[in-house]
């Protein structure tokens, strides 16, 4: 079945969703839905998957088939779906904790195998659902319930990790850059192989308020203000300039054609 209007992709009986006021996850769902609607994917031949977390509630609002799996294992399940039914479009919603902490190994190997699917990581830099513990993406100095004096560990750069592990398409945007994000998801779905799109988003409840960034609007403005285009960051690195702290580098990291597993043809 094809969607006639964009709203056909949502399970309207489930809306409004459970996300807090001003949470960025809803914005990211919109962008993904807009992308699949633009590409005119078949609702019956698209599968959304996720692990556990606030972000991972997203497939539950999709009209197509969806799998809400165990914590961190979304990519393992997605690999199974894609290899079993290669004609399907597989899209994974995941969180930073889900993808980088408990699911870290699945992520690396899914990138290495370059399985033909699109992974959208809603990176709110925290474990939102369980009350705001620090995740592998919590920046140094940021407060969370498990880092009451500020995080001390260097966070993951998920995009560089995906590039290193072999994903075919890697990009990072924020939940403020909606048009760019939508276009990145379109490119990601069109690119054979694993497409990884990291989206920095606001979690006003557990991250923004604790770190004195503020509610949804202030947090989104903060994401916008601190975003820097990848090209500019590379140029600054070449010139030996220091990239200011708390900068989110956004843009397309890589688009290439390594051998793909589970491709459509």
């Amino acid at each position, binding site marked *: 079945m094809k969607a006639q209007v964009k709203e056909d992709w949502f399970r309207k009986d489930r809306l409004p969703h459970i996300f807090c*006021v*001003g949470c960025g996850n*809803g914005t990211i769902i919109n962008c993904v839905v*807009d992308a699949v609607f633009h590409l005119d994917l078949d609702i019956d031949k698209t599968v959304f998957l996720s692990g556990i977390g606030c972000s991972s509630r997203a497939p539950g609002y999709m009209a197509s088939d969806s799998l809400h799996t165990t914590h961190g294992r979304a990519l393992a399940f997605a690999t199974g779906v894609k290899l079993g039914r290669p004609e399907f479009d597989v899209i994974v919603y995941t969180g930073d904790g889900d993808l980088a902490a408990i699911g870290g190994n699945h992520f690396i190997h899914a990138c290495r195998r370059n399985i033909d699917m699109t992974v959208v990581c809603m990176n709110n830099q925290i474990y939102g659902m369980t009350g705001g513990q620090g995740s592998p993406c919590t920046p140094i100095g940021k407060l969370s319930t498990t880092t009451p004096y500020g995080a001390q560990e260097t966070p993951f750069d998920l995009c560089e990790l995906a590039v290193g592990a072999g994903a075919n398409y890697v990009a990072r945007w924020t939940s403020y850059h*909606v048009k760019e994000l939508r276009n990145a998801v379109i490119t990601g779905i069109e690119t054979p192989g694993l497409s990884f799109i990291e989206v920095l988003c606001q979690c006003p409840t557990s991250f923004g308020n604790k770190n004195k960034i503020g509610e949804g609007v202030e947090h*989104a403005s903060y994401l916008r203000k601190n975003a820097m285009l990848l090209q500019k960051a590379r140029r600054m690195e070449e010139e030996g300039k220091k990239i200011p702290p708390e900068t989110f580098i956004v843009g397309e990291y890589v688009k290439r054609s390594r051998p793909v597993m589970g491709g459509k043809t």
Partner: protein
Amino acid sequence: MMKQLTINETLCKGCNLCTIICPYRIFQIGTTPNRRGIYIPKLYKPGRCTNCRLQDLYGRQLCGTCALICPDQAISWETVSQYKKPEIMIEY
């Protein structure tokens, strides 16, 4: 037949994200709570919306950033049958 910008009051949670993204600043922070206690943004001269004015002419969605950023899928364009004279026709 024309398009009209609408906020679905049962979906909107009053996060005000739409107020920061619209290039025309059509969404203004709400001042009175609705029956659910939510401050729904007010629409200031919504006739200026690019999509309302030009969607039918171009035959595709234009701009639409507010509907993309709204985390609660509350913003949409309704097709209204009666012709209402747009408040502003040309924007420079």
